[in-house]
């Protein structure tokens, strides 16, 4: 490192800031996890924001680590990657000539540690649709140690309901594929379904078909599959506790 020329992104102020415009929240790529956690508006939108982000690394790392760094670090269990996949986000990329392009965040990570970014490009920001009152979001993470540890499996999900019908669903799970996994098939299946135990069980079966965990130091394949299931259930148990409990959901 000492021998290579470095180009410091942190001095690029165009990458800072959290803005809310109409129905979209845009967060600059240089934003740290702490800046997100301390943002009043985001706290209102996500009442459990602090609780979620406390699971991400440690105070010191949260004060330093940026979204851009987390996305480009491209770990399949990157917490912020999963978090924003679950928010159905899109990212804007800018090149050295100031040309910009925007793509669905779920299209950014291509394969293990491979992502859609040319040598002359950097991530400018990430944006997500501001949730409405019938939209629910949850984040889950299990690691060997609760704090300052990298997940065995993590998961985030956003679900919108019209009465009891699912109108929109964006679940993502980390640590179960070569990339932070946006569960496209599971999400597609859920839309238009009634939110019932049977739906969740059927969706979980699809989830299992979409993931391909490998055994490594963070856990065996079998464990990660089981955990992916449990955390998927955990979203529903946390968001709709009167309707779903481990008793009725989890012992199948």
């Amino acid at each position, binding site marked *: 490192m*000492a021998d290579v020329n470095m180009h410091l992104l942190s001095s690029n102020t165009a990458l800072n800031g959290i803005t809310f415009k109409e129905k979209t929240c845009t967060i600059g790529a240089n934003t740290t996890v702490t800046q997100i956690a301390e943002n009043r508006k985001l706290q209102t939108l996500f009442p459990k924001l602090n609780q979620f982000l406390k699971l991400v690394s440690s105070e010191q790392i949260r004060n330093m680590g940026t979204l851009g760094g987390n996305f480009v670090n491209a770990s399949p269990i990157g917490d912020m990657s999963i978090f924003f996949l679950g928010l159905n986000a899109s990212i804007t990329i800018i090149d050295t000539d100031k040309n910009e392009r925007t793509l669905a965040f779920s299209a950014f990570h291509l394969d293990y540690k491979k992502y859609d970014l040319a040598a002359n490009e950097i991530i400018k920001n990430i944006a997500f649709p501001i949730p409405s009152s019938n939209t629910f979001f949850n984040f889950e993470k*299990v690691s*060997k*140690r*609760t704090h300052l540890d990298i997940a065995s499996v993590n998961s985030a999900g956003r679900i919108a309901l019209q009465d009891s019908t699912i109108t929109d669903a964006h679940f993502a799970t980390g640590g179960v594929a070569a990339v932070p996994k946006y569960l496209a098939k599971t999400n597609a299946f859920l839309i238009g379904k009634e939110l019932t135990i049977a739906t969740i069980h059927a969706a979980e079966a699809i989830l299992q078909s979409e993931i391909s965990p490998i055994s490594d130091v963070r856990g*065996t394949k079998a464990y990660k599959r089981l*955990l992916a299931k449990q955390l998927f*259930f955990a979203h529903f148990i946390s968001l709709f506790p009167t309707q779903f*409990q481990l008793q009725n959901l989890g012992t199948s």
Partner: protein
Amino acid sequence: MKNIDSYTHLRGESLFVDDMMIRQDALFGLCFDSPKAHGKITKVDYSKAAALEGVERIFTYKDILGENQIGGIIPDEPLWAEDEVHFWGQPIAFIVATSEAIAKKARALIEIEIEELHVITTAKEAKEKGSFINAPRSFNLGNTSDTFKNCDYVFEGETFSNGQEHLYLETQGCYVEPKENGNIKITSSTQGPTQVQKTAAKVLGIPMHRIEVDVIRLGGGFGGKEDQATPWAVMAAVAVQHLNKPVKYMLNRHDDLRMTGKRHPYSSFFKIGLTKDLKIQGFEVEFLQNSGAAADLSPAIAERTLFHATNSYFIPNVKTTVYSCKTNLPPNTAFRGFGGPQGMFVIESAIAAAADNMGIDKATIQEANLLVENDEFSYGQIATEVQATKAWETAKEKFNLEALQKEVSDYNTQNYQTKKGISVMPIAFGISFTNTPMNHARALIHIYQDGSVGVSTGAVEMGQSVNTKMLQVAQDILGISADLVKLESTNTTRVANTSPSAASSTADLNGKAVEMACNNLIKRLQKVASTLLSKNIESITFQEGAVFIDGYKTALTWEAVIAQAMLERVALTENAHYATPIIHFDKTKEKGHPFAYHVYGTAITTITLDCLRGTYEIDAVDIVHDFGKSMNLGIDIGQVEGALAQGIGWMTMEEIAYDTDGRLLSNALSTYKVPDVFSAAKKVAVVPLETEGNPMAIKKSKAVGEPPLMYGIGSYFAIQHAVKAFNKNHKLQFNAPFTPEKVLMSLYEK
């Protein structure tokens, strides 16, 4: 009294090896280690590395003028590999350069070819293949095979406890300086300065007196620097011998994790027999110790496993055997508890298996078998001043065990997604080096002419506060204030031929020596004071910096007595030698009286399990501990809390992983997790057991370093209890650590 280092620690002013002022011409060392776990070295090409600007020289076994041998107990470990490597991370060469960064670059330029040989990573495979460090050892009491025939219940099972990384905050390191006439001074972060001196002398081919080893303090050792601080200091010393320039070598965390040994993993097979009255009548165990590629301290650790195989229970018929299995892992080494925890995990597992099969509570069996006065241990020592029952009863009463148990079972009937678990963990841990000849220490005390005092001992300060205790001993006997006493560094030229600071016995051994030296000095000073005051010697005592006659303070100050002693040419320096009395052990019979005394205690652990996610929290650990008469309760409770956290880590989240090629997978702090403040027990209560204390302990204050680590074993069984409460189908496993992964898989086991 507070730890005397607390002020400088807090301000970051305490000195460690890396803080040493180094000479301007100092060079920096770096070890080149094996990238394979087992094989023949067919070629090493150092030419590119050696040609790099700033590389002074690269040392290999060919540069050793003495013996290429660092094995302590058994001479089976070269400093640098010659034509074969036996573990991944085995030192092969030592690069010396003008900076650490250059040395690192050079290391990457070394080209090596290894013809790979079969790699053994588990003790089980080593046993099958007959790969051992030494002959197995067995302790026997009574007759187990006849006993099992008469038992109402007999259960067999298998256990595994994994290794553990020491994770001292300060990594291994040293700074070595040439002195005149070929003499060498080594500053090392070692628990065993004499071991460093002796080994360096052997490898360099020079007498011990040419090598001075100095230790200021350690940023943690936990056993990891008992034997394994030695190679780095010796490597640097070899370089200094050739270059006649200082060499510094601090391992970075990755190198330290990769190249050093850890707590021994054990695979064990037990058989336990009980009669209807719940008395354990017979117990057999075969322990397979994963020793790694060389002996290091493994044989001694294996021995201690046998000593603690029955924990704090009396079992009349015992047969235990331990095999030190030679594998292709870095030589495993001392770690707080020294094989004792591995032994205790097996008996606790056996009791848990029995209780589960019999459908009763584990604690009922534990309680029915606690040691009582005059019981015989399997190694022949008769238990005296036994506190097992008293500790258990006190814990039961103070913490209201029955109410806790009821709370847990009520909680479990009322809750589905979360479950609670509870366990009781009694301990009995023997104090002394099990190798009797090591139980000695010396102290050298100078009273300077102004009345201030310097104390040197063989004890190494590593955060356990032994220096504070030494100061307390000296201050008490000399009757002066703490600021008049200074603890010197541990230095082989002041106190020679020391045993390492280990086996929980550092404060006892060195403290007794300080006590003896101070008493001798006081005798001389009483005489001086007696003449000055014309009072008889017996009436004189030293307290509060003054002379007392028959308990009454006089105007004669400590300083005045010292000044007079100088005029009278009285010796104000004293050296004393202490060797633990009574202890002995006959290895041919495997019987004797190896321990000065035992430390007892009981811990109650309660945990809450999230059955949806497979995660758990330790709610509370309530401990009654036998401190004897603690000479410093603040420090001793700190030791209990720290040891407990380390024990919990070993049983819950600290998971060493090697792949089948023998490469360490948990090779960074991102993959190896120790408990942090959030995952330590949410509440720890430590109640001292009221006892008379033991005269074999310094100031009757019992050794405290290792015993409380084993309270952590309780966390395993508390988690197991909660898992079983959720999933009746779960077949008990004894496979530590009980990680969230194993928990979740057990919760949903069909």
